[in-house]
């Protein structure tokens, strides 16, 4: 069964135009001008139950707008949307009973009183029975190690502690879908890892579907089997993380540290016939870029035997670089063409990317 089913979803906003300068402001006082902005442009995707899906894109790409439509906050301009079997905006109050939402930058807890008080209130809001609440709370306290935090006021918690409490607050009513908007923003590495572990466990043990937006691609690498990439309101990639890497990770880089100064021409001569690119870092260090088609070992074998090497480092293209590269290559259309079309030809089951053109 599908947890989220979105087809041809579109959202337009009227944005006020502020005319410049004093004269413009005076004119605005009497007649406002509006421009229409399409934040989400006819996107379609399906997320089956139990999947962890990463939703990425630059600021203003339409991530938040989509999340807000999926959680029933915003009503779409057009298109079909179904989450958990509900149309979110239509039966909002019934629908939200089955979802959990965490906005990383905003708290849903009462600032001045103990965390547990907020939890009790949420129990009432979501009409959770006392028994269920107890069982659920015990479990969350254990998995998120909230023990001694429960009675502290929220304002006295560190950001990491607060985020753990926010997660617990969003899960008290045992939702089957969890929406996370920037859940690890501003957290240190240790806490980030803890939260990722927790989410994985939640997904494994309860089968909770998780959709998260993030700027931290390590979140994606650690958690997501699937990534949806958004640019300018359109989906430019939808598929597995591995495919993304395979298709866009164009090569690897190997760095050599030599014991004696060596000329770059000599290195190029050694690897003659192979389509690699050498660059010199300093007297004793050089880097070679190797495209995917060529085996790293081929290059190594040619260099290692004939020179005196003290150290070798291999760099794989990180997801972050890939993503940066995708955005850098310009318009969404070309990027979509390049990624999505081959995927469709192969009819890869997890990748349902569509190059949407308007």
């Amino acid at each position, binding site marked *: 069964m599908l947890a989220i089913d979105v087809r041809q979803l579109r959202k337009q906003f009227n944005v006020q135009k*502020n005319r410049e300068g*004093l004269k413009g*402001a*005076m004119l*605005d*006082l009497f007649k*406002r001008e509006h421009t229409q902005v399409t934040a989400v442009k006819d996107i379609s995707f399906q997320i089956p139950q139990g999947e962890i899906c990463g939703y990425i894109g630059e600021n203003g790409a339409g991530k938040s707008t989509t999340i807000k439509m999926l959680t029933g906050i915003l009503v779409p301009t057009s298109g079909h949307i179904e989450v958990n079997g509900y149309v979110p905006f239509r039966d909002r109050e019934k629908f939200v009973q089955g979802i959990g939402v965490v906005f990383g930058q905003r708290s849903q807890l009462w600032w001045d009183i103990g965390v547990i008080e907020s939890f009790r209130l949420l129990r009432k809001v979501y009409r959770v029975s006392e028994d269920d609440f107890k069982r659920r709370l015990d479990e969350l306290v254990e998995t998120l190690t909230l023990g001694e935090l429960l009675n502290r006021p929220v304002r006295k918690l560190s950001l990491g502690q607060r985020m753990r409490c926010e997660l617990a607050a969003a899960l008290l009513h045992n939702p089957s879908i969890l929406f996370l908007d920037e859940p690890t923003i501003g957290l240190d590495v240790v806490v980030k890892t803890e939260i990722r572990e927790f989410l994985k466990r939640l997904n494994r043990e309860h089968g909770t579907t998780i959709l998260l937006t993030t700027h931290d691609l390590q979140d994606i690498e650690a958690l997501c089997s699937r990534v949806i990439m958004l640019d300018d309101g359109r989906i430019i990639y939808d598929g597995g993380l591995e495919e993304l890497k395979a298709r866009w990770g164009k090569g690897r880089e190997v760095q050599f540290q030599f014991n004696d100064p060596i000329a770059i021409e000599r290195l190029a001569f050694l690897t003659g016939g192979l389509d690699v690119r050498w660059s010199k870092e300093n007297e004793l260090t050089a880097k070679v870029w190797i495209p995917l088609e060529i085996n790293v070992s081929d290059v190594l074998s040619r260099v290692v035997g004939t020179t005196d090497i003290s150290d070798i480092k291999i760099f794989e293209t990180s997801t972050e670089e890939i993503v940066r590269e995708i955005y850098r290559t310009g318009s969404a259309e070309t990027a979509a063409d390049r990624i999505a079309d081959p995927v469709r030809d192969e009819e890869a089951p997890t990748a349902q990317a569509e190059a949407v053109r308007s």
Partner: protein
Amino acid sequence: MISAYLEFIRIRFLMMLAYRVNYYSGIIIYAINIGAYYFMWKAIYGEAETLAGFTVIQMTTYVAVSWMARAFYFNNLDREISNDIRDGSVAVQMTRPYSYLMVKMMQGFGEGLFRLLLFMVPGMVIVTLIFPVTLPTDPVRWIIFFVMIWFSFLINSQLNILTGLFAFFVENNEGLMRMKRVTVDLLSGVVVPIAFFPEWARIVLQWLPFQAITYLPGSVFTGRLNGAETWNALLVQVVWFAVLILPILAMWRAARQRLFVQGG
């Protein structure tokens, strides 16, 4: 440096223009205020010709001009400052190469200027058409009046800054701000001219800064103060302006001390 401050005035002026719901509703609400007070005073006068030395016409003029002056001097600097303090942005402001309090003053002035030009001037025209008010004919009186409401603005803003800075020292100065607002409206003479207060209260009020905000400029405008008394009233304003600088500086210094110790 000066041009930076002027920029703050300009920006706030433009900001005010952007809030057009406020603008339209503001005009209507000020008109209703003046109207309601006009009729209330008419009922209070009943058959009487003068009360506490005010003729009916003087009273009407006083009500109109004091509300209009209020449009100019009124601002929410207290709330802005205490918000800045509570969300910590005041610490950021202190790292900038200007005086935070001066910037606030300038922003308040931009706001006042907006209301003066787009509120007070058209409002005054409408009021003179509807209600029996008499405007002074002597140009000197007009000039003095404008100088005086400039000081009204300064003194009122100083009181607002003082109230706002309290946020450094108490967890929540909401109540204090509300109290200040009511006090200024009542004791400055917008609601009732100070001449109507009982003898003992008048004596007390003479020693407080509030009268300098509305009552003194209003009295000059309505012609109740003349000649030397006018200059006297202006002098009272100047003195209060100077005196109020001291507690502000003291509080600001203490506040910064506190900020350094507690780290915002």
